[in-house]
């Protein structure tokens, strides 16, 4: 763990003592598990100086089907000035999963969140244009959910033969 990373974790713990649930290290990068409701406050704090996580590298979701809080949102942050990476995770309930949108903090969150909405059906509160990104209009369900039927096909035009 680099020196700067320890400082980031320490500052986070001091600033949000109740909201940081767990901290761990995997493959040299820190993982912070946070409370779902305080996501916006925490990322705004991390984006400001001195931590300066100016870049949202990626934003995605994992479906842990069968577990209590089924969906896990994963945010990858990167600080250009201090060359640090930070991974933020938080769990969402399986029934009507929703979380605050990060579009007000990072513009690229717009399409990333639309992708997660398309594939997992997670609603992003405050997203300006939450519409499917990859699948077409009229597609039903969210294909990366574990309960999406493996063989289910939804063709846009009639097929010449049965699949």
């Amino acid at each position, binding site marked *: 763990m680099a020196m700067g990373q320890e400082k980031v974790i320490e500052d986070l713990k001091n600033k949000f003592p109740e909201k940081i649930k767990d901290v761990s290290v995997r493959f040299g990068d820190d993982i912070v598990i946070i409370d779902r409701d305080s996501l916006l406050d925490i990322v705004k704090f991390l984006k400001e100086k001195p931590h300066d996580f100016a870049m949202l590298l990626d934003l995605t979701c994992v479906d842990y089907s069968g577990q209590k809080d089924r969906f896990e949102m994963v945010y990858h942050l990167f600080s250009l000035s201090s060359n640090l990476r930070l991974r933020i995770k938080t769990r969402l309930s399986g029934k009507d999963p929703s979380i605050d949108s990060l579009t007000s903090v990072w513009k690229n969150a717009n399409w990333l969140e639309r992708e997660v909405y398309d594939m997992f059906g997670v609603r992003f509160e405050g997203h300006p244009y939450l519409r499917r990104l990859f699948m077409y209009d009229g597609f039903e369900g969210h294909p990366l959910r574990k309960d999406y039927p493996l063989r289910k096909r939804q063709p*846009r*035009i009639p097929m010449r033969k049965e699949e």
Partner: protein
Amino acid sequence: MGKVNRQKKRAGPVRGGFITTRLNSMIGWGRKYSLFQYPFITACCGMEYMSVACAHYDLDRFGMGWTRFSPRQADMLLVVGTITQKEAPVLKTVYDQMTEPKWVVAFGACAVSGGIYDNYAVVQGIDNIIPVDVYIPGCPPRPETILDALIKLQQKVQKEGHEWRWGKKK
């Protein structure tokens, strides 16, 4: 100068200067050596297509060098790569825009059967959408495989029967 025995030198058409053939066979011959192609390229197989179309393997040797950028001017539709469900109506429209006679080549495993993508997003073979004349297996296919398939298509074009208008009248 010395006498040249022409008849011995040329074993071509007979002396009268005409040859006989059947209309069907002549039209087939003309068509198979002037296949204008429309490449519908969506994925990595496109690299192999470029290799075949360019100088190393040189499709032009078989009279297929002419790439048209409008399906309305093309005879042969090369479907090169993965066709997703989202894209299926586009491919169907392109096929419908082509004028008769037209032939379709499914190029590579994805176009033939969906390939490794047996999932919600990919059409499991373009013959679910449009009729296909020649299937080329491989992921991606070798250029030699492609040439073999296209020569087979030429043979098919040569042998094709034609329904003449006066044939239909009764």
